[in-house]
Protein backbone atom coordinates (compact mmCIF):
# COMPACT_ATOMS: atom_id res chain seq x y z
CA UNK A 1 0.00 0.00 0.00
CA UNK A 2 2.96 2.32 -0.36
CA UNK A 3 1.87 5.34 -2.28
CA UNK A 4 3.57 6.41 -5.48
CA UNK A 5 5.73 9.50 -5.30
CA UNK A 6 3.28 12.24 -6.34
CA UNK A 7 0.72 11.29 -3.72
CA UNK A 8 2.29 12.53 -0.48
CA UNK A 9 2.88 15.88 -2.09
CA UNK A 10 -0.73 16.15 -3.07
CA UNK A 11 -1.89 15.11 0.34
CA UNK A 12 0.30 17.73 1.98
CA UNK A 13 -0.86 20.40 -0.37
CA UNK A 14 -4.51 19.79 0.32
CA UNK A 15 -4.08 19.26 4.01
CA UNK A 16 -1.61 21.91 5.06
CA UNK A 17 -3.72 25.07 4.95
CA UNK A 18 -6.63 23.68 6.93
CA UNK A 19 -6.84 22.12 10.33
CA UNK A 20 -7.09 18.37 9.98
CA UNK A 21 -10.37 18.38 11.88
CA UNK A 22 -12.18 19.84 8.93
CA UNK A 23 -11.68 16.72 6.85
CA UNK A 24 -14.77 15.19 8.39
CA UNK A 25 -16.67 18.13 9.73
CA UNK A 26 -16.65 20.53 6.80
CA UNK A 27 -17.99 17.78 4.59
CA UNK A 28 -20.60 19.12 2.25
CA UNK A 29 -23.74 17.17 2.92
CA UNK A 30 -24.82 15.30 -0.17
CA UNK A 31 -28.40 15.30 -1.34
CA UNK A 32 -28.22 12.35 -3.63
CA UNK A 33 -30.77 12.32 -6.40
CA UNK A 34 -32.58 9.00 -6.77
CA UNK A 35 -31.88 7.09 -9.93
CA UNK A 36 -33.58 4.34 -11.92
CA UNK A 37 -32.21 2.12 -14.63
CA UNK A 38 -30.51 -1.16 -15.38
CA UNK A 39 -27.72 -0.81 -12.85
CA UNK A 40 -29.99 0.59 -10.15
CA UNK A 41 -32.15 -2.51 -10.69
CA UNK A 42 -29.12 -4.72 -10.29
CA UNK A 43 -28.25 -2.97 -7.05
CA UNK A 44 -31.77 -3.36 -5.72
CA UNK A 45 -31.75 -7.01 -6.74
CA UNK A 46 -28.60 -7.46 -4.69
CA UNK A 47 -30.06 -5.48 -1.79
CA UNK A 48 -32.95 -7.95 -1.76
CA UNK A 49 -30.83 -11.05 -2.14
CA UNK A 50 -28.24 -10.13 0.48
CA UNK A 51 -30.81 -8.87 2.98
CA UNK A 52 -33.21 -11.79 2.56
CA UNK A 53 -30.19 -13.98 3.31
CA UNK A 54 -28.95 -11.84 6.18
CA UNK A 55 -32.30 -11.28 7.90
CA UNK A 56 -33.69 -14.70 6.98
CA UNK A 57 -30.93 -17.19 7.76
CA UNK A 58 -31.13 -17.02 11.57
CA UNK A 59 -34.78 -18.14 11.34
CA UNK A 60 -34.14 -21.36 9.44
CA UNK A 61 -33.92 -24.70 11.17
CA UNK A 62 -31.92 -27.73 10.21
CA UNK A 63 -31.98 -31.04 12.08
CA UNK A 64 -33.76 -29.42 15.03
CA UNK A 65 -31.25 -26.69 15.46
CA UNK A 66 -30.63 -23.27 13.94
CA UNK A 67 -29.38 -23.77 10.40
CA UNK A 68 -26.72 -21.08 10.52
CA UNK A 69 -25.32 -20.38 13.94
CA UNK A 70 -21.85 -19.39 14.99
CA UNK A 71 -22.31 -20.79 18.43
CA UNK A 72 -19.71 -19.06 20.55
CA UNK A 73 -20.60 -20.78 23.79
CA UNK A 74 -20.18 -24.24 22.24
CA UNK A 75 -17.29 -23.11 20.06
CA UNK A 76 -18.96 -24.62 17.02
CA UNK A 77 -20.07 -23.07 13.76
CA UNK A 78 -23.20 -24.65 12.32
CA UNK A 79 -23.80 -24.05 8.63
CA UNK A 80 -26.66 -26.27 7.54
CA UNK A 81 -25.38 -29.84 7.47
CA UNK A 82 -21.81 -28.88 8.20
CA UNK A 83 -20.42 -28.22 11.62
CA UNK A 84 -17.09 -26.51 12.05
CA UNK A 85 -15.04 -27.15 15.15
CA UNK A 86 -12.07 -25.17 16.41
CA UNK A 87 -9.92 -27.89 14.80
CA UNK A 88 -11.28 -26.78 11.42
CA UNK A 89 -9.59 -23.37 11.54
CA UNK A 90 -7.83 -24.52 8.38
CA UNK A 91 -11.13 -24.09 6.51
CA UNK A 92 -11.52 -20.57 7.82
CA UNK A 93 -8.07 -19.76 6.45
CA UNK A 94 -9.04 -21.22 3.06
CA UNK A 95 -12.28 -19.26 3.13
CA UNK A 96 -10.34 -16.04 3.67
CA UNK A 97 -8.04 -16.91 0.76
CA UNK A 98 -11.08 -17.58 -1.42
CA UNK A 99 -12.61 -14.23 -0.47
CA UNK A 100 -9.37 -12.40 -1.18
CA UNK A 101 -8.91 -14.03 -4.58
CA UNK A 102 -12.55 -13.51 -5.51
CA UNK A 103 -12.06 -9.83 -4.73
CA UNK A 104 -8.86 -9.68 -6.83
CA UNK A 105 -10.54 -11.57 -9.66
CA UNK A 106 -13.68 -9.46 -9.88
CA UNK A 107 -11.80 -6.20 -9.35
CA UNK A 108 -9.39 -7.03 -12.17
CA UNK A 109 -12.32 -7.75 -14.50
CA UNK A 110 -14.79 -5.01 -13.68
CA UNK A 111 -13.49 -2.78 -10.91
CA UNK A 112 -15.37 -2.22 -7.70
CA UNK A 113 -18.30 -4.55 -8.33
CA UNK A 114 -18.35 -5.45 -4.66
CA UNK A 115 -18.53 -1.82 -3.54
CA UNK A 116 -21.15 -0.77 -6.06
CA UNK A 117 -23.59 -3.59 -5.55
CA UNK A 118 -22.97 -5.89 -2.60
CA UNK A 119 -21.01 -4.14 0.16
CA UNK A 120 -23.12 -3.79 3.31
CA UNK A 121 -22.22 -0.10 3.40
CA UNK A 122 -23.78 0.36 -0.05
CA UNK A 123 -26.73 -1.90 0.67
CA UNK A 124 -27.70 -0.24 3.97
CA UNK A 125 -27.10 3.24 2.57
CA UNK A 126 -29.45 2.34 -0.28
CA UNK A 127 -32.11 1.17 2.19
CA UNK A 128 -31.67 4.20 4.45
CA UNK A 129 -31.78 6.61 1.49
CA UNK A 130 -34.97 4.95 0.26
CA UNK A 131 -36.57 5.52 3.67
CA UNK A 132 -35.30 9.10 3.68
CA UNK A 133 -36.75 9.69 0.23
CA UNK A 134 -40.14 8.27 1.25
CA UNK A 135 -40.35 10.44 4.37
CA UNK A 136 -38.55 13.65 3.46
CA UNK A 137 -39.07 13.72 -0.29
CA UNK A 138 -36.60 13.96 -3.16
CA UNK A 139 -33.14 15.53 -3.03
CA UNK A 140 -34.44 19.08 -3.54
CA UNK A 141 -37.09 18.81 -0.83
CA UNK A 142 -34.53 17.30 1.53
CA UNK A 143 -32.16 20.19 1.02
CA UNK A 144 -34.96 22.70 1.56
CA UNK A 145 -36.08 20.88 4.67
CA UNK A 146 -32.53 21.01 6.01
CA UNK A 147 -32.31 24.74 5.45
CA UNK A 148 -35.79 25.51 6.75
CA UNK A 149 -36.21 26.66 10.35
CA UNK A 150 -37.63 24.14 12.77
CA UNK A 151 -41.36 23.68 12.30
CA UNK A 152 -43.97 21.09 13.18
CA UNK A 153 -43.60 19.57 9.72
CA UNK A 154 -39.81 19.42 9.95
CA UNK A 155 -39.92 17.99 13.44
CA UNK A 156 -42.42 15.37 12.36
CA UNK A 157 -40.50 14.29 9.27
CA UNK A 158 -37.17 14.25 11.09
CA UNK A 159 -38.54 12.20 13.97
CA UNK A 160 -40.32 9.82 11.61
CA UNK A 161 -37.12 9.30 9.62
CA UNK A 162 -34.98 8.71 12.68
CA UNK A 163 -37.60 6.40 14.14
CA UNK A 164 -37.79 4.21 11.03
CA UNK A 165 -34.00 4.24 10.66
CA UNK A 166 -33.72 3.32 14.33
CA UNK A 167 -36.11 0.40 13.95
CA UNK A 168 -34.27 -0.95 10.91
CA UNK A 169 -30.97 -0.51 12.74
CA UNK A 170 -32.24 -2.27 15.87
CA UNK A 171 -33.59 -5.13 13.80
CA UNK A 172 -30.25 -5.37 12.05
CA UNK A 173 -28.45 -5.48 15.39
CA UNK A 174 -30.82 -8.15 16.65
CA UNK A 175 -30.27 -10.22 13.52
CA UNK A 176 -26.51 -9.86 13.84
CA UNK A 177 -26.53 -11.15 17.41
CA UNK A 178 -28.87 -13.99 16.35
CA UNK A 179 -25.97 -15.41 14.35
CA UNK A 180 -23.99 -15.90 17.53
CA UNK A 181 -26.65 -16.55 20.14
CA UNK A 182 -29.57 -18.83 19.20
CA UNK A 183 -32.54 -16.93 17.74
CA UNK A 184 -35.06 -18.85 19.83
CA UNK A 185 -33.35 -17.79 23.07
CA UNK A 186 -33.05 -14.20 21.85
CA UNK A 187 -36.74 -14.09 20.94
CA UNK A 188 -37.66 -15.41 24.34
CA UNK A 189 -35.45 -12.74 25.89
CA UNK A 190 -36.99 -10.08 23.66
CA UNK A 191 -40.49 -11.01 24.76
CA UNK A 192 -39.72 -10.34 28.38
CA UNK A 193 -36.86 -7.94 27.65
CA UNK A 194 -34.45 -10.07 29.62
CA UNK A 195 -31.44 -10.03 27.32
CA UNK A 196 -28.07 -10.91 28.74
CA UNK A 197 -26.02 -7.73 29.26
CA UNK A 198 -23.63 -8.59 26.44
CA UNK A 199 -26.36 -9.57 24.02
CA UNK A 200 -28.03 -6.24 24.63
CA UNK A 201 -24.71 -4.47 24.32
CA UNK A 202 -23.97 -6.02 20.90
CA UNK A 203 -27.50 -5.47 19.58
CA UNK A 204 -27.23 -1.78 20.45
CA UNK A 205 -23.62 -1.55 19.31
CA UNK A 206 -24.27 -3.07 15.90
CA UNK A 207 -27.55 -1.20 15.56
CA UNK A 208 -25.97 2.13 16.46
CA UNK A 209 -23.20 1.65 13.94
CA UNK A 210 -25.67 0.64 11.23
CA UNK A 211 -27.54 3.85 11.93
CA UNK A 212 -24.36 5.94 11.99
CA UNK A 213 -22.76 4.41 8.88
CA UNK A 214 -25.84 4.12 6.65
CA UNK A 215 -27.72 7.16 7.89
CA UNK A 216 -25.09 9.73 8.74
CA UNK A 217 -21.57 8.91 7.55
CA UNK A 218 -22.47 7.25 4.23
CA UNK A 219 -19.86 8.02 1.55
CA UNK A 220 -17.34 9.05 4.21
CA UNK A 221 -17.05 5.42 5.25
CA UNK A 222 -15.94 4.57 1.71
CA UNK A 223 -13.72 7.61 1.37
CA UNK A 224 -11.94 7.65 4.70
CA UNK A 225 -12.49 4.34 6.45
CA UNK A 226 -12.46 1.63 3.85
CA UNK A 227 -9.04 0.09 3.31
CA UNK A 228 -10.09 -1.53 0.03
CA UNK A 229 -10.57 1.87 -1.61
CA UNK A 230 -6.94 2.62 -0.86
CA UNK A 231 -5.39 -0.40 -2.51
CA UNK A 232 -7.90 -1.12 -5.25
CA UNK A 233 -5.63 0.58 -7.77
CA UNK A 234 -3.09 -2.23 -7.65
CA UNK A 235 -5.72 -4.62 -9.02
CA UNK A 236 -6.68 -2.35 -11.90
CA UNK A 237 -4.99 -2.52 -15.26
CA UNK A 238 -5.74 -0.96 -18.67
CA UNK A 239 -8.10 -3.84 -19.48
CA UNK A 240 -10.22 -3.48 -16.35
CA UNK A 241 -13.81 -2.43 -16.99
CA UNK A 242 -14.41 0.80 -15.13
CA UNK A 243 -17.12 3.41 -15.24
CA UNK A 244 -15.80 5.94 -17.69
CA UNK A 245 -16.91 9.18 -19.21
CA UNK A 246 -16.14 9.16 -22.93
CA UNK A 247 -14.30 12.45 -23.05
CA UNK A 248 -13.65 12.37 -26.79
CA UNK A 249 -17.37 12.04 -27.43
CA UNK A 250 -18.63 14.33 -24.70
CA UNK A 251 -16.32 17.34 -24.92
CA UNK A 252 -16.60 20.22 -25.34
CA UNK A 253 -19.63 19.98 -23.11
CA UNK A 254 -22.33 22.62 -23.05
CA UNK A 255 -26.00 23.45 -23.03
CA UNK A 256 -27.88 23.20 -26.30
CA UNK A 257 -31.42 22.91 -27.62
CA UNK A 258 -32.92 19.52 -28.31
CA UNK A 259 -32.74 18.40 -31.92
CA UNK A 260 -29.72 20.53 -32.82
CA UNK A 261 -26.72 18.61 -34.09
CA UNK A 262 -24.05 19.27 -31.45
CA UNK A 263 -21.27 19.03 -34.01
CA UNK A 264 -22.73 22.01 -35.88
CA UNK A 265 -22.31 24.01 -32.66
CA UNK A 266 -18.81 22.67 -32.19
CA UNK A 267 -19.93 20.78 -29.11
CA UNK A 268 -19.68 17.22 -27.88
CA UNK A 269 -22.53 15.03 -26.62
CA UNK A 270 -22.37 16.12 -22.96
CA UNK A 271 -25.13 18.63 -22.34
CA UNK A 272 -23.61 19.53 -18.98
CA UNK A 273 -26.87 18.89 -17.13
CA UNK A 274 -24.92 17.79 -14.05
CA UNK A 275 -27.28 14.91 -13.27
CA UNK A 276 -24.35 12.48 -13.17
CA UNK A 277 -22.97 14.53 -10.28
CA UNK A 278 -26.35 14.80 -8.53
CA UNK A 279 -26.87 11.04 -8.47
CA UNK A 280 -23.35 10.21 -7.32
CA UNK A 281 -23.44 8.81 -3.79
CA UNK A 282 -19.87 10.00 -3.16
CA UNK A 283 -20.43 13.41 -4.73
CA UNK A 284 -17.74 13.24 -7.41
CA UNK A 285 -17.84 14.25 -11.04
CA UNK A 286 -17.11 11.18 -13.16
CA UNK A 287 -16.18 13.49 -16.03
CA UNK A 288 -12.95 14.27 -14.19
CA UNK A 289 -11.82 10.72 -14.82
CA UNK A 290 -11.35 7.67 -12.61
CA UNK A 291 -11.11 8.69 -8.96
CA UNK A 292 -10.52 6.67 -5.85
CA UNK A 293 -13.80 7.91 -4.37
CA UNK A 294 -15.77 6.20 -7.16
CA UNK A 295 -17.40 3.11 -5.68
CA UNK A 296 -18.46 1.83 -9.09
CA UNK A 297 -22.20 1.99 -8.43
CA UNK A 298 -22.97 3.03 -12.03
CA UNK A 299 -25.68 5.49 -10.90
CA UNK A 300 -24.15 8.02 -13.30
CA UNK A 301 -24.49 5.55 -16.18
CA UNK A 302 -28.20 5.09 -15.50
CA UNK A 303 -28.71 8.84 -15.16
CA UNK A 304 -26.74 9.76 -18.27
CA UNK A 305 -28.41 7.08 -20.41
CA UNK A 306 -31.80 8.60 -19.60
CA UNK A 307 -30.55 12.03 -20.63
CA UNK A 308 -29.07 10.62 -23.84
CA UNK A 309 -32.43 8.97 -24.59
CA UNK A 310 -34.21 12.29 -24.15
CA UNK A 311 -31.74 14.03 -26.44
CA UNK A 312 -31.97 11.18 -28.98
CA UNK A 313 -28.25 10.59 -28.68
CA UNK A 314 -26.86 7.07 -28.49
CA UNK A 315 -26.49 5.74 -24.94
CA UNK A 316 -23.16 5.15 -23.31
CA UNK A 317 -21.56 8.57 -22.97
CA UNK A 318 -20.77 7.25 -19.51
CA UNK A 319 -20.33 3.48 -19.61
CA UNK A 320 -18.39 0.49 -18.40
CA UNK A 321 -15.35 0.39 -20.62
CA UNK A 322 -11.60 -0.12 -20.36
CA UNK A 323 -8.75 2.28 -20.69
CA UNK A 324 -7.43 0.35 -23.69
CA UNK A 325 -10.83 0.16 -25.34
CA UNK A 326 -11.23 3.91 -25.14
CA UNK A 327 -7.74 4.57 -26.43
CA UNK A 328 -7.88 2.05 -29.26
CA UNK A 329 -11.57 2.36 -30.11
CA UNK A 330 -12.35 -1.25 -29.33
CA UNK A 331 -15.82 -2.70 -29.63
CA UNK A 332 -17.43 -5.09 -27.16
CA UNK A 333 -15.82 -8.09 -28.83
CA UNK A 334 -12.28 -6.91 -28.15
CA UNK A 335 -13.18 -5.87 -24.61
CA UNK A 336 -14.57 -9.33 -23.87
CA UNK A 337 -11.53 -10.94 -25.51
CA UNK A 338 -9.29 -8.97 -23.16
CA UNK A 339 -11.15 -10.17 -20.10
CA UNK A 340 -9.07 -13.32 -20.60
CA UNK A 341 -5.58 -12.09 -19.92
CA UNK A 342 -2.75 -13.50 -17.81
CA UNK A 343 -3.79 -11.56 -14.73
CA UNK A 344 -7.41 -12.73 -14.67
CA UNK A 345 -6.45 -16.24 -15.76
CA UNK A 346 -3.99 -16.54 -12.88
CA UNK A 347 -6.47 -15.12 -10.36
CA UNK A 348 -9.19 -17.36 -11.80
CA UNK A 349 -7.05 -20.49 -11.70
CA UNK A 350 -5.92 -19.89 -8.13
CA UNK A 351 -9.52 -19.18 -7.13
CA UNK A 352 -10.77 -22.37 -8.78
CA UNK A 353 -8.01 -24.50 -7.25
CA UNK A 354 -8.56 -23.11 -3.75
CA UNK A 355 -12.35 -23.58 -4.08
CA UNK A 356 -11.82 -27.19 -5.15
CA UNK A 357 -9.42 -27.75 -2.26
CA UNK A 358 -12.06 -26.36 0.11
CA UNK A 359 -14.79 -28.65 -1.20
CA UNK A 360 -12.48 -31.64 -1.29
CA UNK A 361 -11.21 -30.95 2.21
CA UNK A 362 -14.77 -30.64 3.50
CA UNK A 363 -15.91 -33.82 1.79
CA UNK A 364 -13.00 -35.87 3.07
CA UNK A 365 -13.16 -34.56 6.62
CA UNK A 366 -12.97 -37.34 9.20
CA UNK A 367 -16.40 -37.85 10.74
CA UNK A 368 -14.72 -38.99 13.95
CA UNK A 369 -11.98 -37.43 16.02
CA UNK A 370 -10.54 -38.54 19.31
CA UNK A 371 -8.18 -36.81 21.71
CA UNK A 372 -6.46 -39.05 24.23
CA UNK A 373 -5.34 -37.33 27.42
CA UNK A 374 -3.41 -39.17 30.12
CA UNK A 375 -4.66 -38.61 33.62
CA UNK A 376 -1.81 -36.62 35.12
CA UNK A 377 -2.88 -37.06 38.75
CA UNK A 378 -2.03 -40.75 38.96
CA UNK A 379 0.56 -41.83 36.46
CA UNK A 380 0.66 -45.53 37.26
CA UNK A 381 -0.99 -47.37 40.09
CA UNK A 382 -0.70 -50.93 41.27
CA UNK A 383 -4.03 -52.63 41.65
CA UNK A 384 -5.22 -56.04 42.78
CA UNK A 385 -3.73 -59.09 41.15
CA UNK A 386 -0.36 -57.51 40.45
CA UNK A 387 -1.65 -55.38 37.63
CA UNK A 388 -0.69 -51.83 36.76
CA UNK A 389 -3.37 -49.30 35.99
CA UNK A 390 -3.09 -46.14 33.86
CA UNK A 391 -6.03 -43.80 33.47
CA UNK A 392 -6.92 -42.01 30.25
CA UNK A 393 -9.57 -39.54 29.28
CA UNK A 394 -10.81 -39.81 25.73
CA UNK A 395 -12.62 -36.91 24.08
CA UNK A 396 -14.71 -38.45 21.33
CA UNK A 397 -15.92 -35.96 18.73
CA UNK A 398 -18.71 -37.17 16.52
CA UNK A 399 -18.75 -34.85 13.52
CA UNK A 400 -21.69 -36.65 11.89
CA UNK A 401 -25.27 -35.42 11.92
CA UNK A 402 -26.55 -38.56 13.66
CA UNK A 403 -26.11 -40.16 17.05
CA UNK A 404 -23.48 -42.85 17.01
CA UNK A 405 -22.29 -45.49 19.45
CA UNK A 406 -18.59 -46.13 19.70
CA UNK A 407 -16.69 -49.06 21.18
CA UNK A 408 -13.15 -49.02 22.47
CA UNK A 409 -10.39 -51.57 22.29
CA UNK A 410 -6.83 -51.34 23.45
CA UNK A 411 -3.75 -53.17 22.16
CA UNK A 412 0.04 -52.91 22.16
CA UNK A 413 1.08 -54.83 25.28
CA UNK A 414 0.52 -58.49 26.17
CA UNK A 415 -2.50 -58.87 28.41
CA UNK A 416 -3.57 -55.24 28.12
CA UNK A 417 -7.27 -54.65 28.76
CA UNK A 418 -9.76 -52.04 29.76
CA UNK A 419 -11.05 -52.44 33.32
CA UNK A 420 -14.68 -53.48 33.37
CA UNK A 421 -14.61 -54.69 29.79
CA UNK A 422 -14.65 -52.64 26.60
CA UNK A 423 -17.08 -49.75 27.10
CA UNK A 424 -19.58 -48.35 24.64
CA UNK A 425 -20.57 -44.74 24.60
CA UNK A 426 -23.24 -42.90 22.72
CA UNK A 427 -22.32 -39.53 21.21
CA UNK A 428 -25.04 -37.20 19.94
CA UNK A 429 -24.99 -35.58 16.53
CA UNK A 430 -22.17 -33.08 16.15
CA UNK A 431 -21.16 -33.29 19.74
CA UNK A 432 -18.41 -34.37 22.07
CA UNK A 433 -18.42 -36.97 24.78
CA UNK A 434 -15.67 -37.74 27.24
CA UNK A 435 -15.01 -41.15 28.64
CA UNK A 436 -12.53 -42.22 31.32
CA UNK A 437 -10.82 -45.53 30.73
CA UNK A 438 -8.76 -47.49 33.22
CA UNK A 439 -6.29 -49.63 31.34
CA UNK A 440 -4.79 -52.64 33.10
CA UNK A 441 -1.56 -54.41 32.23
CA UNK A 442 0.24 -57.25 34.08
CA UNK A 443 3.25 -55.65 35.81
CA UNK A 444 5.77 -57.67 33.79
CA UNK A 445 4.13 -57.07 30.42
CA UNK A 446 6.57 -54.43 29.23
CA UNK A 447 9.72 -52.57 30.06
CA UNK A 448 9.71 -50.14 32.99
CA UNK A 449 8.94 -46.60 31.84
CA UNK A 450 6.81 -45.73 28.89
CA UNK A 451 5.39 -48.31 26.52
CA UNK A 452 3.39 -47.62 23.41
CA UNK A 453 -0.22 -48.70 23.35
CA UNK A 454 -3.01 -47.98 20.93
CA UNK A 455 -6.71 -47.34 21.28
CA UNK A 456 -9.02 -48.48 18.55
CA UNK A 457 -12.30 -46.60 18.45
CA UNK A 458 -14.99 -48.05 16.18
CA UNK A 459 -18.50 -46.94 15.32
CA UNK A 460 -20.92 -49.76 16.05
CA UNK A 461 -23.21 -49.05 13.12
CA UNK A 462 -20.37 -48.61 10.66
CA UNK A 463 -17.27 -50.71 11.42
CA UNK A 464 -15.41 -49.02 8.56
CA UNK A 465 -15.48 -45.85 10.63
CA UNK A 466 -12.69 -46.39 13.07
CA UNK A 467 -9.71 -44.54 14.39
CA UNK A 468 -6.44 -45.55 15.95
CA UNK A 469 -4.93 -43.27 18.55
CA UNK A 470 -1.50 -43.95 19.98
CA UNK A 471 -0.55 -43.11 23.52
CA UNK A 472 1.89 -44.30 26.16
CA UNK A 473 1.44 -46.64 29.08
CA UNK A 474 3.68 -46.12 32.10
CA UNK A 475 5.04 -49.08 34.04
CA UNK A 476 6.74 -48.32 37.36
CA UNK A 477 10.48 -48.92 37.60
Amino acid at each position, binding site marked *: MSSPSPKPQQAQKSKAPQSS*DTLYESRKKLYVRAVTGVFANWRWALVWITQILFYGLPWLSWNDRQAVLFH*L*AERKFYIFGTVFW*PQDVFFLAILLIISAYALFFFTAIAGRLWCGYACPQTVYTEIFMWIEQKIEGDHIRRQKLDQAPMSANKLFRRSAKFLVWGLVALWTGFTFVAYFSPTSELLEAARTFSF*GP*WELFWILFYGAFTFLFAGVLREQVCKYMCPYARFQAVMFDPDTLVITYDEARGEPRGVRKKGVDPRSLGKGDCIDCGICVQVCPTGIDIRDGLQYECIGCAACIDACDQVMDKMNYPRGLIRYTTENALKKNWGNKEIVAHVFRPRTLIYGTVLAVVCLAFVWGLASRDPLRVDVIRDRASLAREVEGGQIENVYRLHVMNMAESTRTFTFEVSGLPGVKIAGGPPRIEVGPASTQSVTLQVLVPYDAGKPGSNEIEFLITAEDDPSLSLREETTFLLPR
Partner: protein
Amino acid sequence: MLKLIQVLWPSFAVAALAEAVFFTVIDPQELYLFGQVVHYGALATYSIAFLGFWLVCAASSLSTLFLQRSAADINRRN
Protein backbone atom coordinates in the same frame (compact mmCIF):
# COMPACT_ATOMS: atom_id res chain seq x y z
CA MET B 1 -13.48 14.13 15.07
CA LEU B 2 -10.91 13.06 12.50
CA LYS B 3 -8.46 12.19 15.27
CA LEU B 4 -11.11 10.22 17.10
CA ILE B 5 -11.85 8.17 13.99
CA GLN B 6 -8.17 7.77 13.22
CA VAL B 7 -7.70 6.24 16.66
CA LEU B 8 -10.89 4.21 16.99
CA TRP B 9 -11.44 2.84 13.51
CA PRO B 10 -8.14 1.12 12.61
CA SER B 11 -7.90 -0.22 16.16
CA PHE B 12 -11.42 -1.64 15.82
CA ALA B 13 -10.50 -3.45 12.62
CA VAL B 14 -7.26 -4.85 14.05
CA ALA B 15 -9.00 -5.81 17.31
CA ALA B 16 -11.59 -7.78 15.34
CA LEU B 17 -8.79 -9.63 13.57
CA ALA B 18 -6.89 -10.23 16.81
CA GLU B 19 -10.05 -11.50 18.49
CA ALA B 20 -10.74 -13.95 15.66
CA VAL B 21 -7.19 -15.29 15.60
CA PHE B 22 -6.85 -15.45 19.39
CA PHE B 23 -10.05 -17.37 20.00
CA THR B 24 -9.68 -19.79 17.12
CA VAL B 25 -6.48 -20.86 18.81
CA ILE B 26 -7.47 -20.55 22.46
CA ASP B 27 -10.56 -21.86 24.18
CA PRO B 28 -11.88 -19.28 26.66
CA GLN B 29 -12.23 -22.09 29.19
CA GLU B 30 -8.46 -22.44 29.21
CA LEU B 31 -8.00 -18.86 30.32
CA TYR B 32 -7.00 -17.84 33.80
CA LEU B 33 -7.66 -14.48 35.37
CA PHE B 34 -5.52 -13.67 38.42
CA GLY B 35 -4.92 -17.36 38.89
CA GLN B 36 -8.63 -18.24 38.78
CA VAL B 37 -10.32 -20.04 35.93
CA VAL B 38 -12.41 -17.51 34.00
CA HIS B 39 -15.97 -18.17 35.06
CA TYR B 40 -17.86 -15.70 32.86
CA GLY B 41 -20.20 -16.87 30.15
CA ALA B 42 -18.77 -17.40 26.71
CA LEU B 43 -20.34 -14.27 25.22
CA ALA B 44 -19.06 -12.17 28.12
CA THR B 45 -15.54 -13.54 27.76
CA TYR B 46 -15.48 -12.90 24.02
CA SER B 47 -16.95 -9.44 24.46
CA ILE B 48 -14.60 -8.36 27.23
CA ALA B 49 -11.65 -9.73 25.28
CA PHE B 50 -12.73 -7.83 22.20
CA LEU B 51 -13.10 -4.58 24.08
CA GLY B 52 -9.72 -5.26 25.67
CA PHE B 53 -8.09 -5.82 22.29
CA TRP B 54 -9.76 -2.67 21.03
CA LEU B 55 -8.45 -0.68 23.97
CA VAL B 56 -4.89 -1.93 23.46
CA CYS B 57 -5.02 -1.27 19.72
CA ALA B 58 -6.52 2.16 20.32
CA ALA B 59 -3.67 2.94 22.72
CA SER B 60 -1.25 2.06 19.96
CA SER B 61 -3.08 4.23 17.41
CA LEU B 62 -3.15 7.05 19.92
CA SER B 63 0.62 6.81 20.49
CA THR B 64 1.19 6.85 16.73
CA LEU B 65 -0.92 9.95 16.45
CA PHE B 66 0.89 11.53 19.38
CA LEU B 67 4.36 10.82 18.01
CA GLN B 68 3.39 11.91 14.54
CA ARG B 69 3.00 15.53 15.56
CA SER B 70 5.43 17.72 13.71
CA ALA B 71 7.87 20.13 15.38
CA ALA B 72 5.61 22.98 14.30
CA ASP B 73 2.68 21.39 16.10
CA ILE B 74 4.67 20.97 19.29
CA ASN B 75 6.28 24.42 19.23
CA ARG B 76 3.04 26.21 18.59
CA ARG B 77 1.92 28.07 21.69
CA ASN B 78 -1.72 28.24 22.45
